């Protein structure tokens, strides 16, 4: 199946496409800084970017879709940890005595700490993967994340009708 699909090669990808593909990874650094207290902000930004660029080329479509998909679990983790933390801190507020931090400290259970470490590691791995993917995209290369790479590949190349194909309504007369 893969052999039948014609994949864009670096020399066929325009400079603009390379830039857009790279931007799909790097824009999350900017968007997450802007929307720091709201972890889902960068996901929205990513979706908007995908919506407006995915139709320009398959190469950009692949990278922006992969970037958006891979942000999903990270966003979920970050949202959970932010709300969990707020719940612990505000749930035990106001405190009976201003020096009594025990209920808040108790709230930071081992499950919470475990989840926070996994979230931090996931973010780190995600950033590393994104930087590599962004750099590759700038060189006109495809780079596959585990799992998300496969879905994005299917989305951009396998289950994809060429741009404007639906518009071929004029056909030869039927015999």
């Amino acid at each position: 199946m893969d052999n039948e699909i014609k994949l864009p090669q670096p020399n066929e990808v325009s400079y603009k496409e390379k830039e857009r593909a790279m931007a799909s990874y790097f824009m999350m650094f900017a968007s997450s800084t802007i929307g720091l207290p709201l972890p889902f902000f960068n996901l929205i930004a990513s979706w908007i970017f995908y919506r407006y660029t995915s139709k320009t080329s398959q190469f950009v479509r692949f990278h922006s879709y992969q970037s958006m998909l891979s942000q999903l679990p990270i966003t979920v983790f970050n949202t959970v940890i932010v709300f969990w933390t707020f719940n612990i801190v505000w749930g035990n507020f106001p405190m009976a005595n201003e020096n009594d931090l025990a209920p808040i400290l108790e709230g930071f259970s081992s499950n919470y700490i475990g989840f926070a470490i996994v979230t931090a590691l996931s973010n780190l791995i995600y950033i590393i993967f994104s930087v590599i993917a962004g750099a590759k995209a700038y060189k006109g290369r495809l780079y596959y994340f585990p799992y998300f790479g496969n879905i994005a590949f299917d989305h951009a190349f396998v289950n994809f009708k060429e741009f404007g194909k639906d518009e071929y309504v004029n056909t030869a007369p039927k015999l």
Partner: protein
Amino acid sequence: MSRTYRQLLVLVAIFISAWFAFSYISQSYFADKETKTIISLESEEKLASAIHSIILSEFDTINSPAANIVLDSILLRLQKGIDSARYTYNFTIIDNEQLNAFATLGGRIYIFKGLIEHSDNAEMLASVLAHEIGHIEHHDFENRLAKNIAISTVIAVATGGNETLISELSKSVLGSSYDRQQEAHADKFAMQLLEKVNIDPSALGVFFIKIKRLDNSNLDLEYFQSHPNTDSRIEKVANYRVDDDFNEIKFDSLQWNALADWVKNDVIFQ
């Protein structure tokens, strides 16, 4: 597509196992910190004797063979439920109306007469003693002592060794209370220990409810003041579930009633 699902499964498995692993690591890290011994058994015993003599100089104590029989039987039963057996628990009765009990080092527990007076039955007193044993087993007093010594040292250096200040600070170790987390852990320990030695853990909850009621009648209740947040503690006891095969074995009520009568009429201690 099957490859995609396989990869998804692997990612989910990695996430779940990493979460469990880190939760386990942080749990065991904090558990280690909690039960860590900071002094040897020998030094602990020496320190315990020194503290004992300070307590004897501050309070009158009661030595009554009749009371000892009842209290010994309670402590002996609780001791049976402790696996580590680092200490042989012993008690001293303090002749004071305060509703209180506290533990220091080396398995020494101090029971105020007021606590015996206000306990409805042997199970209730056992639940308070189990809580104090929890503090001993978790080395709470040692940690509090270490913290106070550290503060005293800093202040001693800062003030150029003001002796009065240092001595006041040392006394404050006995007066200060444990933090809420230490209390919560001691409560949990008490409930598990009580269940292990066939005493109904709800006795601890009944005790909390009782001191809360007594507090509303404006009695001077030391125990209540040094053990804050009674409502959430009652709730935790109420939520504790004993095993299905739990079989309660009650203490000899005749013995307890005799002790309670003696205490009430102030006969035993005269």
